[in-house]
């Protein structure tokens, strides 16, 4: 396997695993919890690193970080429940504190890797601060592939097996609880998987990309559809496209792979925002324009139906107070539809146009 292939495949695994869970996070309005968790896994990784005596050990790191992630969720929920602090402020309190602890521990006890702390965020160097450095190539690629492939599978199974429960508790938590679906258990299961995915990805691609992949593709899909299965599928697709395009772009520009993947994901979101068939900004504007034009054209037809002779454009403009450009647009539409005929003396209805105008609504 070439290293390019390994990197892109790992990224696709990360994006797929994230998109599966992220779709539910976005719908449950817990997107920022993903941000908090992905930062808070740092102290968990540091702790595991310390416990295992400085060895590069995958299992303790996964467990430690998952525990840190759950700790974050629990702390945020506890703070919110006390009623003293609002939910968003609680998130903003917990994760910087935990992240600070992580940074502090790295600077204090793992001095020689101090500078590599940025790698935690860049993520191009796997196992960011703790390893004898290796290029992100053949050596490491397969291992991250194993981790992320496994996590993707686990997440996929979780979503498939508990799809009905997840859907119900996401859209109507009250009903889910009343029917005995234990939404709280499901909630913590989801959060545990998010933590696990975050730390698995943390090791292979860094913290920014996790947040980007957990939130941006599902948010993009959210703009494109109103159906949950379609949304999840689209989110996975957007994630995969971002992975491939981001990698190509990173190679072309010699820039951070994770950064460019996040950038592409952001750009795709922007495209969806502008051009989505359901409520995209430009789509909506175009539709409004078209409706305005069509309405004007029908008005014009009705007006012309009252006259036996062709009406000069000047008279129409005076009558409706339109700008000449707007009249031209309406006229163009009506002519293309075969309702209006050009005439040297002015505007004249075709037979079809007269029939349409004569119709009683």
């Amino acid at each position, binding site marked *: 396997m070439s290293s390019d292939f390994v990197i892109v495949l790992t990224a696709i695994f990360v994006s797929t695993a994230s998109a599966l869970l992220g779709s539910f996070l976005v719908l449950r309005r817990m997107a920022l919890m993903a941000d908090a968790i992905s930062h808070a896994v740092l102290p968990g990784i540091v702790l595991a690193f310390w416990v295992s005596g400085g060895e590069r050990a995958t299992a303790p790191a996964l467990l430690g970080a998952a525990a840190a992630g759950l700790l974050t969720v629990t702390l945020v929920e506890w703070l919110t429940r006390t009623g003293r602090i609002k939910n*968003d402020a609680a998130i*903003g309190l917990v994760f910087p504190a935990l992240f600070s602890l992580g940074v502090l521990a790295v600077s204090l006890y793992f001095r020689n890797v101090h500078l590599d702390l940025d790698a935690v965020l*860049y993520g191009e160097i796997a196992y960011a601060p703790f390893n004898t450095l290796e290029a992100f190539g053949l050596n490491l690629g397969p291992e991250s592939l194993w981790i992320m492939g496994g996590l993707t599978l686990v997440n996929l199974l979780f979503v498939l097996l508990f799809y009905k429960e997840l859907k119900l508790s996401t859209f109507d938590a009250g009903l889910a609880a009343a029917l005995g679906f234990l939404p709280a258990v499901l909630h913590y299961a989801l959060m545990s998987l998010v933590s696990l995915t975050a730390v698995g990805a943390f090791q292979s691609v860094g913290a920014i990309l996790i947040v980007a992949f957990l939130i941006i593709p599902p948010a993009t899909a959210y703009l494109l559809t109103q159906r949950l299965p379609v949304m999840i599928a689209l989110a996975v697709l957007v994630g995969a496209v971002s992975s491939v395009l981001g990698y190509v772009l990173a190679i072309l520009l*010699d820039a*951070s792979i994770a950064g460019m993947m996040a950038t592409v994901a952001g750009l795709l979101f922007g495209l969806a925002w502008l051009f989505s068939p359901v409520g995209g900004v430009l789509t909506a504007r175009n539709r409004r324009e078209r409706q305005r034009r069509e309405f004007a054209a029908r008005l014009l037809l009705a007006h012309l139906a009252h006259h036996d002779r062709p009406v000069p454009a000047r008279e129409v403009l005076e009558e409706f107070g339109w700008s000449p450009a707007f009249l031209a647009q309406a006229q163009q539409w009506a002519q293309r539809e075969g309702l209006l005929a050009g005439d040297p003396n002015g505007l004249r209805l075709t037979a079809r146009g007269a029939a349409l105008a004569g119709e009683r609504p």
Partner: protein
Amino acid sequence: MDLLAGIFTDYTLRNVALGAALLGLVGGVLGSFATLRRQSLLGDVLAHAALPGICLAFLLTGTKAPLILLLGAGLAGWLASLLMLAILRSTRLPEDSTLGVILSGFFGFGIGLLTFIQHSGDSDQAGLDKFIFGQAATVVGEDVLTMAVLGGVALLLVGLLYKEFKLLTFDPAFASSLGLPVRGLGTLLTSLTVIAVMIGLQTVGVVLMAAMLIAPAAAARQWTNRLSTMVWLSAAFGVLSGVLGAVISATRENLPTGPLVVLTASLITLFSLLLAPERGLVWDWRRTRNNRRRIRLERLLLDAHVLYNHAELTPESLAQRRRAAPARAKEELEELAARGWVTGRGERWELTEQGHAEAHRLEQAMRVLPKALNPRAEGGAGGAA
């Protein structure tokens, strides 16, 4: 003490402490408004969004003058906030997802630009990445001056528009009915938050900036219900965490300032949450525990009262009635005895005068409710007679 004196004598420490204190001051003041307006995480988004601004400013101008880079950061943060508002207004995407998209998208782009600059071989670029985690030790006098000017402008504007901001925070609908430009004021407040972020980039960095806007304000909120007091307290907490964090980080080598400032602020918040008068959680817990204990004792007394009046009050009978172990029932009787409500020894126990009075009072108190809730109960009984 030597350390504190160091603030005045040691040039580096003085600059670091001043920078952190300024950040705490401005962050505390603007954070108060942001948290009350439920926009706590806006600062986090603005900070992350600042990174591409810094990189673009460097790419376009080729300088590393702090003011230029900070202006780039501010501009990018400001753009991000406008984009966020536009998305919020035009789609049904939930607010937190919108924040997340802007945050990670801009930050990813920033990281991309940063690595692009680093790999382009320009030796001038070294140090741009200090903005991610902050590197307070690199703060020099010139930077402090820049921060002071920026912060001064922000604080001056808050001072001048305090009344308007207060109204905007608590009752935007009323503010709008008074003819205040609510949207403009909101944008201005957000722009001032951008300034706070610009001040914090060098000291605590992009990632931890959120805490400097949230923690002091959240701590101050616990101590008071008045906005003016809260703003002052929040500023004071901010300055305190800034200075303490800077001083602690100077005690040893390799102690990064930013995380220490953030941890100090977090500890102040934790302390306030637990122990602030009235709102403190500890007082809450104590109240709950006392109530629980009182209610348990009262129910115990009522049980004893019933047994004493209609049967025998012995540890066995009490245990049976309360479905508990006899040994436990004995302990409970002793608890009642300690209050002077029952007397006795071994098998035979009786209620004291005081115990009767208390049980009677409780029964009366309990009787009020059923009557009030179900008036027919009394009438029905009367009618049947």
